[in-house]
């Protein structure tokens, strides 16, 4: 395992984390979607690199899946959705960008601290990748938590899944079943979200999740 291989995969995984930060930084929907597309692209590159490094060609499928679905298709659909539904372009955030970035930093530090405890005996790839993947997962959650728009939350969720895929591909020799299921679940997720977005569109003026919560049968 050459240093170059290690460095490249490190670089790619690291840039994924960077993209997560960019996601966290965005306050407009179109650029958020673009950033997500970019992250997915980087993810597919990382997977491709892993496929090459591990000598596991089936990972290329996953990489292709990532490009087609997450880098191209979904961002397209989302852009159209935003346009056709006339959703506000600005994202309402819960905390300011600054604090969110700080929190993100803290999360990355946490991920690192956790993974460093893992004994070096484990696959070195796995260890580094896992640290980054964990960061991406946590940052994705942070995006979900700090954004109010449904679309941006969905993007946060998908970015979280990017982290998962990164982790899964980093795990050497993990059976195919996982990848397909991830892809599958993303697909279904999107369909269902689509249905829901439409339904919600039918009944509510915005996709803002907060509007959904305004009425409750049990409120006294």
């Amino acid at each position, binding site marked *: 395992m050459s240093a170059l291989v290690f460095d490249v995969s490190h670089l790619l995984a690291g840039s994924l984390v960077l993209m997560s930060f960019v996601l966290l930084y965005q306050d407009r929907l179109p650029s958020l979607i673009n950033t997500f597309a970019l992250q997915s692209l980087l993810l597919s590159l990382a997977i491709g690199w892993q496929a090459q490094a591990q000598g596991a060609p089936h990972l290329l499928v996953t990489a292709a899946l990532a490009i087609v679905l997450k880098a191209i298709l979904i961002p397209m659909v989302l852009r159209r959705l935003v346009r056709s539904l006339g959703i506000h372009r600005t994202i309402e955030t*819960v905390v300011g960008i600054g604090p969110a970035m700080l929190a993100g930093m803290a*999360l990355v530090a*946490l*991920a690192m*601290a*956790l993974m460093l*405890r893992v004994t070096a005996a484990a696959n070195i790839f796995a260890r580094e990748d896992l640290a980054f993947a964990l960061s991406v997962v*946590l940052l994705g*959650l*942070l995006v*979900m*938590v700090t*954004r*109010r728009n449904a679309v941006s*939350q969905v993007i946060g969720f998908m970015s979280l899944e990017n982290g998962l895929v990164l982790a899964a591909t980093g795990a050497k020799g993990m059976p195919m079943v996982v990848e397909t299921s991830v892809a599958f679940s993303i697909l279904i997720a999107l369909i269902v979200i689509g249905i829901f977005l439409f339904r919600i569109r039918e009944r509510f003026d915005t996709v803002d*999740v*907060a509007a*959904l*919560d305004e009425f*409750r049968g*049990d*409120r006294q």
Partner: protein
Amino acid sequence: MIIAALLASVALLLGISLVALAVAGRRQAGVVVYGATAVACAVAVAAAAVGLAGNQAIEFHLPIGLPWTGAHFRLDALSAFFLIVVNLGGMSASIFGCGYGRHEIAPQRVLPFFPAFLAGMNLVVLANDAFSFLLAWEFMSLMSWALVMSHDREPDTARAGYIYIVMASFSMLALLLAFGILAGPDGNYAFDVMRAHGAAQGSAAIVFSLVLLGAGSKAGLVPLHVWLPLAHPAAPSHVSALMSGVMTKVAVYAFIRIAFDLMGPLDWRYSVIVIGLGGVTAVMGVLYALMQHDLKRLLAYHTVENIGIIFTGLGLALAFRANGLTAAAALAASAALFHVFNHSVFKSLLFFGSGAVLASTGTRDMEKLGGLIRVMPRTATGFLIGAAAISALPPLNGFASEWLTFQAIFLSPALPQWGLRFLAPAVGAMLALAAALAAACFVKAFGVTFLGRPRTPAAETAVETDSMSLAAMFALAGLCVVAGIVPGFFTNALGTVSHMLTASEMPHQALVALGTPLLPSLGNPNSYSGLMVAGLLLLAGTVTYLAVRTFANVATRHSLAWGCGYPDTSRNSQYSAESFAQPIRRVFGTLAFDAREEVFMPPPGDVGAAKIHVTLRDPAWDLLYAPPASAVAFIADRLNVLQFLTIRRYLSLVFLALVLLLTVLALWV
């Protein structure tokens, strides 16, 4: 054999309850069910009496319940005595129910639970392992709760039921904790094992307070009594009789079983708590009772009072036993147990009486009654005997057991601890106060309900109750008299029980020479003979009567009431329950209940009515229950917000949990 008979009668009771479930809607179902229940109880009384006489611990094991322990049962002197109390109460209540049950609006809500309730109480007393005990205990609570809820259309019932079920679970869980500690790390829940190793030194205090909380709340010790006056009156009257007269005794049994039997020898300090609580309970209970104008609630508060007397006796027994004064301990324990029996008898009687009144007039508010002695003379007589007995008047049974309790208190100077020597007479004065107030209270209860002029048409047109109800009442009234004039018979029977608890017993009272007075303990010259007093009273009364008949003018003229010459036509000018208790409320009320009187007098020239408004607060409620209740409500309100968060906020919760967990892992592991 005996225990098999007892268990069979329990099974019979459960069977009756199932049958009742099926036939409850039929017309004659009540008589059948109550009749069968009475028979089952009679069998159980007989078996328990044999067991008490036999004085041997019989154990029995059934392979049901928990897979590796099964159900253990045991019949010893203590349980035999309480079985007699339970089933005697059950029998009389069933007989009363034969008649009274006809007035029931929804018999299908009473009939199935009534025998099951009795079965539950029997099982509590028979159980010989913690699981069976708690199972039966909770079953008993649940069945009585169902009975309380049987009149669920009445306004206060829902609240009473709610508070009752909360308190019942509280008592169950307190006992569960107590048993848990008693069982120790081995987790053996058989009573035999617990008895063998007793309570560990460090945990005894915790176990004891838990038992006091668990059994005390069921029995109605102040300040855990608040549920009792709500729940007991809400049930149908014969059930109220069972709950007040019998179920509280089952709680007393639980206390005795654990504190005296399972925990082994106890330090004298514990007795201070019991004696003190007993005294306070007696006084507070009767003071509360005095302030009531609901007949059944008044009776329920009197249960609290009598529980206080019983616990005082038990506390004294603990104190004497801890100091090795076994004879005195036996006296105190016998006094308490005798009072257990007596109270179950006269409290059932009184509840039956109030039930008859309720059935006949449709109300239990004394302010709406009056003059019933003229339309319901037999009920009135029964009630009067019960009232005199509970007021501890000689020559009835209430006096006999209170007399024994006082005698036990008079032995307290023999105790080496100063605290106890001061406490015991103080509690004695409290018991005397309670007895005097009880007499006052029953003058009020009987006087306002049965005497005077009817305050409403309902009271005027009431009719005498049915013969079955009367039979049950007079049987109990007879028992009051018998236990009052030959108390020695009962203390003799209690000898084995007392021996079990205190390793000693009261001197055997000779019954052959019937005039022999009751001797509390050996070498003690004090004595009281119910029979002698009763005989003398009879003699004095007869002599007087004959003398008056012979020598005096026996002419009688009927006329209007004199009333110092004021024609007094309004029924409402009579003394009401409220006004009767007013002087006592003025004396004790401000202290005990924060009683406030607001008097509104119209200004001169205004012809509007003057008004007086009295507010009473139960300090136990304010101090002990309101804070936790409001705390729970407060927390519930705060947490309730959590239900209505947005998805994002829920996600934040998940997220925070995750981060927290990971941080913990990163920092500590």
